[in-house]
Structure formats: C-alpha cells, structure tokens
C-alpha cells in the first residue's frame, strides 16, 4: 500500500496534470474552435484564430512544457521524492 506521504504527493501530481491538460486543451482546441468568432483580430497579417493555431499555440506549448516540469520538480522535492541530484551535478 502507498504511504500517506505518497498519497498526498500523488494528489498534488494529479492536480498539476489536470491543470496542464486543461491549459493544453484551451490552446490546442479552444482557440482553433473559437476562431470563427475571432475573425476580425489580426496578428502579423493573419486572423487571430489562424495565428494561434499555426504559431501561437505551439509557443504556448513550449512554455507550458517547461512550466509543468518546474512545478512537478517542486512537488517532488516538497514530498521528498527528489530524484535529480545526479542530473544537476551532471549539468554544472
């Protein structure tokens, strides 16, 4: 059976997972599906909906991936499951 600490860590991890998924859905489907309504706004000579689907969302995804990594690492450290001493040593 998982320890209480593990259960609490898992709860936090799951919440972070859901938050990331919601943000991802918003920027992948959300903007694309709303794009018929965003027709008049222009970015770089493109309608906002098109710009978000072609370029904007991808840039958000990159940010989101690193944001997720940072938060998950913070959660792991808080609950004592830090596993990346080796990598940090490896890097600097």
């Amino acid at each position, binding site marked *: 059976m998982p320890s209480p600490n593990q259960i609490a860590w898992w709860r936090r991890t799951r919440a972070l997972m859901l938050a990331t998924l919601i943000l991802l859905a918003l920027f992948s489907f959300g903007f694309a599906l709303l794009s018929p309504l965003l027709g008049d706004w222009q970015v770089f000579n493109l309608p906002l909906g098109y710009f978000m689907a072609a*370029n904007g969302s991808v840039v958000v995804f990159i940010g989101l991936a690193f944001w997720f990594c940072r938060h998950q690492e913070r959660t792991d450290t808080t609950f004592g499951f830090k596993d990346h001493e080796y990598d940090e040593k490896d890097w600097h």
Partner: protein
Amino acid sequence: MSGLKSFRHRPLALFIVVTVLLTVFLAFLAVMEQAGISTGISGSFLVFIVLGVIALIGAGTRSMTVPQFFVADRNVPAVYNGMALAGDWISGTAFLAMAGFIYLYNFDGLSYILGWTGGLVLVAVLIAPYFRKSGAYTLPEFLEIRFQSTSVGLVALLALVVCSLLFLVAQIYIGGQLLSFIVGLEPSFALYVTCGLALACTLTGGMRSVTRTQALQLIVLFLAYLGPVILVSAQLYGLPLPQVTYGIALKEAAELQQAVSPVSADQAIGFTAPFGQLGLLNFIAITLTVTVGSMCLPHLLMRFSTATSAYSARRSAAWALVFVGIIAISAPAYAAFVKLEVFKSVVGASFSDLPNWLFELGSLGLVQICGEPALSVDTAWGACSAIGQDSPLLLAQNISFSLEAMVLALPQIGGLPYVLGVFVVVGAICAALSTASALLLVLANAITQDLVFSVAVPNAATHHRLTVARALLIFFAFAAAYLCLVFGQSVMEVAVWPLTIAGSAFLPVLICAIWWRQCNKYGALGAMIVGGGLAGYYLVASHMNGAALWFGVVPEAASIFAVPLGFIAAVGISLVSGAPSSDSLDQVDLMRTPSGPEVKKEQRAVF
C-alpha cells in the same frame, strides 16, 4: 569519437559547432558553384560528406553490454536526449509532408501541427516519467511489468511490430527515393544504401550510437528545414523571420487568386478561414489522432528509457518540443511562400512560361498537370488537350501537388544556390534515417527482450542477447527494403497508419496503466484489442473495400472512435473482472514514485 564524448554535457555547444561547420561548408560549395563546378559534383559531395560522417560516427560507437545496447547506459542528459528525441519525432514523412498538408487544406491542415506538438507536452505529463521509472526498455515490457502478465506484453508486441514495420517501410522508401533522385543511384540500389546507412547507426552501438546520430541528424534537418525558408523570407520581405512574414504572402496570394479566377467574397478569405475543407469534426479528429498517435509510437517512447531519471525524461520531452515546435511553426511559412509563387507564375500562366522547378518536381512524380506527371511543357500540354482542356493558360483545377512537393520546391522557387536545394534533400534523408534507425532498434529490442528472452530463454547471457538483437536489425532492414521493392509507391499510402494504430491500441492502456490503479490485465488486453482492432478495421475497410465513412471522418483519423471505445473496454472489463493482483498494485506505486530504483527486477538484465 572522444570529441563527441566531451560534447555530451554541452549539447548546445555541439549544436553551434555543427551549425558553423555546415554553414561554412555550404558557403564553400555555393562559391564553387559560382566558379563553375558542376552542380552534380558539388551536390553529391555534400550528400556523401554529411551522410558519411554521420554513418561513421554511428558505426564507430560500440556497445558491449545489454544496458549500453538497449538503453545507452541510461546516462543521456536531458537536453541531449531531447535533441535525439526531436530527431526521432521529426520523421521523413513529417519533414516533407507537413507543409504540403497545410498547402492543401489551409487552416484545416493546421490540425497536424497542433497534434504533433501537443502530443509532446502530453507525453511529458502523462507517460514519460513513469515509463522511465518502470525501467522497461520497450513499451511491451512496460505493460508486462505493470500488469505482471506475459500475454499483455505479447499483444502489445504484436501491435508494436505492425505499426513500427509500416512506419519503417515508409521511412526507408522516402530515404531511397530522395537518395536516388539526388545522387542518381538506381532506385532499388538506393533503397539498400538507405538500409545500410540506418544499420550503420544501429548495428554496432544500438541505442548508444543512435543517440549520437539522432542528435546530429536533428541538427542537420533543423538547419535544412529553416535555412531556405529564412532566406526566402529575407528575399521577399527583407525580414529573416518567416513566421512573421508569411501572413503577407498569404494575403498577396489571395489577391492574386482573386485576379486570376474571381470568386465570391466569402470564398476569397479561403486561405485562412477555418473548417472550410475538412470540416470541424475532421479537424478535431485529426488533431486528436495525431496527438495520441505521436504520444504512443513505441520508437518514440523508447527514447525516454535512455534518460537519467524520471526528472530527466520530462525535461527531454520539453527540450525536444523546442526543436519540434520551431520546425512546426515554420511549416505554414513553407506552404504560404509556395502558394504565393504558384499564383504568381503557375496558375494562369501560358504553358510555355511554366517555371522549370515544376518539371523537376514532376519528374519525381510530385506534380501532376491534367492527371499526368508534369515532365515537360509538351507532356503537360498533351495531357490537357487529351482531356479536352485546351485553354492556352494553365487553370488552377488542372494542377495538383503531392504533399511532399512544397519543401523540395522552395529553394528553387527562391532562386537559392543549387547546394541549398540539395541540403534540404539531405535534411529530409536525415529525418527519414533518424526515424528509421529508431524503428529498426525498437523492432529488434522488443522482439529480443519480450519474445526471445522473456518467453523462450529467460536467463540468456549478454552476448547472446546482443547477437540476437543485431541479427534482428539486419533482418528488419532487409525486410523493409524488400517490402519497398515489392509494393513501391503504395507504401506511402499507409505511411500515416502507424500513428492511427499506435494511438488507438496503446493510449487507453497506457493511461489506465499509470493513472488508474484498479486497471487489471484483462482490461489492458481488452483495451488494446478493441482499440487497435477498431482502428485497423476502419482503415482497411475504407481503403480496400471503400466502405462508407462514419460521420464523414477520414479513415486516418479513426482514433476518435477507437480511443474512447478502448477506454470503455479498459474500465468496463477491469471493473467486471475483479481487483488487480496486489503484486500488480505494488508495481503501480513503485512506478509512480519518482525517486528510488527502477521497478524492473535487476536479474532480467544479465551483465
């Protein structure tokens, strides 16, 4: 090779050094071209040097132990692993066809970009760290460890072989075609050369050499994809940022389209208007299929097993997304610049004024005029008069491009030096090779680990495992070349099937395995059989027998039906058939916890 070793921990320095070397080399060849050296010679020189160096580095890396061969000793740092993963993620098909997909379907084609990049975020969140922590080498082994069931592993292995082999054949075919086009080799010989190059990256060093060659191939393909589009953007609008300028190109193309063939006002916004061509449902279905497919392709998941830790597996995915994302946001620019040129000098032009690049692509079978490959002005004219299209001007509906045409056409359209056109082809070959070598390796590794040595001979010695894996590598390389020769062009028709099959068969089971403790082995089996079976049925039935489409969803987007059904099967069967064994539950808890040793029992990897 010791030089590369010191780059292990400075992958960005490696990136810069290779970039500078390649730029100098390309500039040198461009100058030679000006000085009158035959373009054929300089082009072949470029191909041999780039592919030769990568093959030598691959072949010069040796692996002596099982962990070295199968998981590169699990010591690949995150950025470096991310680069290799990106090289793996960007297949030859994606490199060539993504821009074409956007060219053909405009806004609706962007679904591919969204799925392709979104999948990388999802894999970091949902699968990668747990896959790494399990200690499995391949996907079937992961499921076998989680569910403590050999039969789950074997069913997964079957799905893995189907989708990896289909994917491998397409990559080898692309590599062979491009190689024969650029160096003038005979097509069947070029296929074997491609297989040889892929084997050079895998045979001696397994995962260790693939990690190195994929990172290098990523740099080459990255520069090859971005170079021409940046130069053309600078040429057209004085700003080397294609992602910013292509909006202008699309606007100009729309105006030209209006001038050539006036259409009503609501069609005039066609290039950027959403859901005009594939429709809203297909947009969602394709995005979903590409997302889940790229999350679950076994050769991509295998890359996470080389990361140093669960932490590093997450970071690898994030770093890979940097490279994949930059390629993805450049693809619409390729489509836009080619579109502008097509409306400038192809559509509405008289036959004798058609540009030369059209016929060069036509000789590759990538451009058709009036239903026939565009080989010369005469054949184009002949084909059009044969079907009664005797207008002296080429009409928009009489010309059709293959998906692969855009990326190959742009350097010529921009009037860039010939070597840059060759460089793009080299980039595409690298994309195909990096994916092909990973596919070879995942096939060989999975069969060695999950069939031969887990079911048949559990306690085999290291050298037996390596010998079997190497024999399988050679077998699959030749099998792929043979299938290419037998089926020819038609292997490209099934090039995206692996994405559909992998997502449908593996996503429900992978998500349930990690995120739902109560999932048991019967649920896992049911999910794979239902999901994979439904996707396979939908693909085959609509392709071979022309069966009716469900709600008009294109066959390749079958995951929109298969994934929900797979989840229902996993949940339903697991609930009916009772709680999973306590052994299996222990595996889940261990797999989720990021710190501590791997789940996999050590004796499975005999040193």
